[in-house]
């Protein structure tokens, strides 16, 4: 007796929707086992991660955090998903996020201390442009010289991190900051502050931008020829060429869009929740967004839900760290398991398991 994978004639619709749910359940089981081995009560740990932020005693504080942490993840993941669907792999969203924050904050700080309505919109544009420009480096290198965009975009993350440190300690350092690293704080600069739209809700302009991105991406992929060409290129590159898709333009569009959205996310973060440019400004949203994109099946609505779920594990993970003393590495492993199980169970969308008698082949 052995198990055999058999390709389905059609991708299973049921499993397309069931996969994320089953993956989350498997993650809870395997994660629970991991926590048990670490000597924690698995039930309590899982409940702390998934229940406390939403319905616990301090939910009033954590619920807004869900939007604050979810928005950049969704915004970046939406951009990445366009490229991923076309087989264009931007792994360097973290770098584009940093550059977007730098250019956005840079424009804002250049106006300081002037107060005007147009400063914030200019910062938004600068942030998007910065991320776009950073993503254009791997895009142009790939279309001109055929370099691998995975490696180039990833390596540019480390370049961006160096640039961030340089800026935090140099050009953008707060002149009144008594020599501490870090820029002026946008929370004390009303014209440049990405403030909450409704106080206490966590809803800032980045959340609005993420929602708009979800809607636009949905329309693009399902109703527009460009989205069709993106999907076609990912599924059958030769057929796409036959259909008349220009691969160069598609690469520039996909990398450019994902870079711009990552740059926007960085800009909204630096001018809002983070408040300032600092050495440790980036916390890995750009990498986690890759998980979010796949967890959401590269589908705009799925990405929105996955972004919220990922934000939940972040917040819950922090609570578990402080309340239960779980190590940070265990939480990261827990998040990694989510992607692992998702990819493993994803096989069932296109294959079915069949029991067979051992047969000589």
């Amino acid at each position, binding site marked *: 007796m052995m198990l055999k994978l058999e390709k389905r004639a059609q991708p299973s619709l049921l499993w397309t929707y069931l996969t994320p749910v089953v993956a989350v359940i498997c993650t809870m089981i395997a994660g629970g086992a991991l926590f048990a081995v670490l000597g924690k009560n698995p039930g309590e740990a899982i409940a702390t991660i998934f229940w406390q932020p939403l319905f616990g005693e301090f939910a009033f504080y954590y619920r807004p955090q869900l939007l604050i942490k979810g928005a950049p993840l969704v915004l970046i993941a939406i951009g990445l998903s366009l490229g991923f669907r076309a087989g264009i792999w931007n792994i360097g969203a973290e770098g584009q996020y940093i550059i977007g924050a730098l250019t956005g904050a840079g424009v804002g700080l250049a106006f300081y201390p002037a107060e005007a309505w147009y400063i914030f919109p200019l910062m938004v544009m600068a942030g998007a442009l910065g991320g776009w420009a950073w993503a254009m480096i791997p895009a142009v290198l790939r279309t001109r010289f055929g370099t691998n965009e995975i490696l180039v975009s990833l390596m540019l993350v480390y370049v961006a991190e160096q640039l961030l440190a340089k800026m935090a300690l140099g050009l953008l350092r707060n002149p009144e900051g008594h020599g501490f690293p870090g820029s002026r704080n946008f929370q004390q600069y009303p014209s440049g502050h990405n403030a909450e739209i409704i106080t206490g809700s966590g809803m800032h302009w980045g959340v609005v931008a993420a929602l708009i991105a979800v809607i636009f991406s949905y329309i693009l992929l399902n109703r527009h020829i460009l989205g069709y060409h993106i999907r076609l290129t990912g599924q*059958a590159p030769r*057929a796409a060429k*036959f259909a008349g898709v220009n691969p160069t333009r598609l690469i520039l569009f996909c990398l450019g869009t994902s870079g711009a959205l990552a740059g926007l996310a960085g800009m909204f973060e630096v001018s809002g929740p983070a408040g300032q440019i600092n050495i440790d400004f980036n916390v890995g949203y750009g990498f986690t967004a890759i998980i979010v994109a796949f967890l959401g099946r590269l589908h705009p609505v799925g990405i929105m839900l996955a972004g919220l779920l990922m934000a939940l594990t972040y917040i819950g993970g922090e609570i578990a760290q402080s309340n239960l003393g779980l190590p940070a590495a265990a939480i990261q492993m827990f998040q990694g398991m989510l992607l692992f199980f998702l990819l493993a169970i994803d096989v069932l969308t296109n294959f079915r398991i069949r029991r067979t008698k051992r047969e000589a082949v």
Partner: protein
Amino acid sequence: MSAVLLSISGLTKAYPGVVANSNVSFDIEEGQVHALLGENGAGKSTLVKMIYGLVKPDSGKMMLRGSVYTPSEPRAARAAGVAMVFQHFSLFEALNVAENIALGMENPPRMRDLATRIREVSETYGLPLDPYRTVGDLSAGERQRVEIIRCLLQDPKLLIMDEPTSVLTPQEVEILFQTLRKLTSEGVAILYISHKLEEIRTLCDHATILRLGKNVGSCVPAETTARDMAELMVGSAFEAPARAGRALGDVALDVTGLSLPAPNEFGTSLRNIHFTVQQGEILGIGGVAGNGQDELLGALSGEILSDAGAIVLKGQPIGRLGPVARRALGVLAAPEERLGHAAAPDMSLTENALLTGAQRENLMNRGFLKWAETESFAKRIIEAFDVRTPGPENAARSLSGGNLQKFVIGREVLQRPEVLVVNQPTWGVDAAAAAAIRQALLDLAAKGTAVICISQDLDELMEISDRFCAVNEGRLSDIKPAQGLSVDEIGLMMGGAHGMEVSHA
């Protein structure tokens, strides 16, 4: 009457949802060339896979020279004296002939001894082959010789050949047939799978015909007409395409001095290609696979750009235009590879209808897609071309090869092309569907479309084309009227006698 070599009785094999073979029985005699005839999906491959030990039958038994024969794997089959030449070769292009043959052996001898044996066998059976040549440099016919010699080195009693002539020129076919006749004179039996009726009539002593997994009859091919055999295969009388007299119009497409470098390492470069096609004309382009057919289609469809003036549509140079612009002007194409080139396997038929229909069928509005119109276009294709599928929402890969081919051809035909380029329009398609596709091409030409039909099926080209030429190593032969062309002439055109270059010299 000689002795029975392999006796098959009551072989049955079922896969989920389909019975591939149901109670098939027949005998193969020693020294006999036994044809196995049937449409695609009739169960020929499953049957030979059972004989070769690749698939285990559900029931039934086989007797080899009177003793029970149940090969559990190909190695056991080979040990019992059964060898097989597959339709698709399994050779490493970077290795030489002898190394490739050694790889398939249980205990390969020293390379020098092996090379000597390869030379001996190849000379004995009239299959010239240098053991030290790299396989990547060999033609399809020569590669097939490698596979045949690999089998002959095992001294087989039964040699199974799966559609061996599909990649050969007529001259190469003749060489192969001589080899096979020599083998049978030494007592080797050959199980010969094909759907080319004429060659079965010239070569085979006996034919077993399969339809829907069942043995539906047998005959002596030399005494049976091709038409009768075809009807046994299909199960009903089918109509040969009607060829109405057509009036030819102005020149629709004029290709002058089209030269292109090979698009990749394994591609063929096109060299100085000239031809014209008139409205209402079908130009047949024959040739052995891999001689530039794909590249020619790419150059005409706009996937590969050339000099502007190399391709002229009714006086307008289009060589620099991409596929979208050419489609807008009415130059449509249907590539050979259905899955992945002509259609996206995982997309629905509706989405695949959009693939080439977006412009001419007016399926978008400022880039926004009209899904309702697209779906009705897909439905029109399905209806007009009798595509068997539950509906347009099904993925392309769920269709059988023949049905998807009908969809792909239908998608272009329904867009009323000025010029239609097709490559292998009936490859791997059953006889009834092939007849329908050929009829559609003829009807299209009758309405004034210029059709360029690239194919490796010479019968097909002779049946539908007005003029014929062949590609060989990226060059085009002289173009001659198809009617009255002899097999010898065709063979010379395919084999690389470049009439044009000779006359220039």
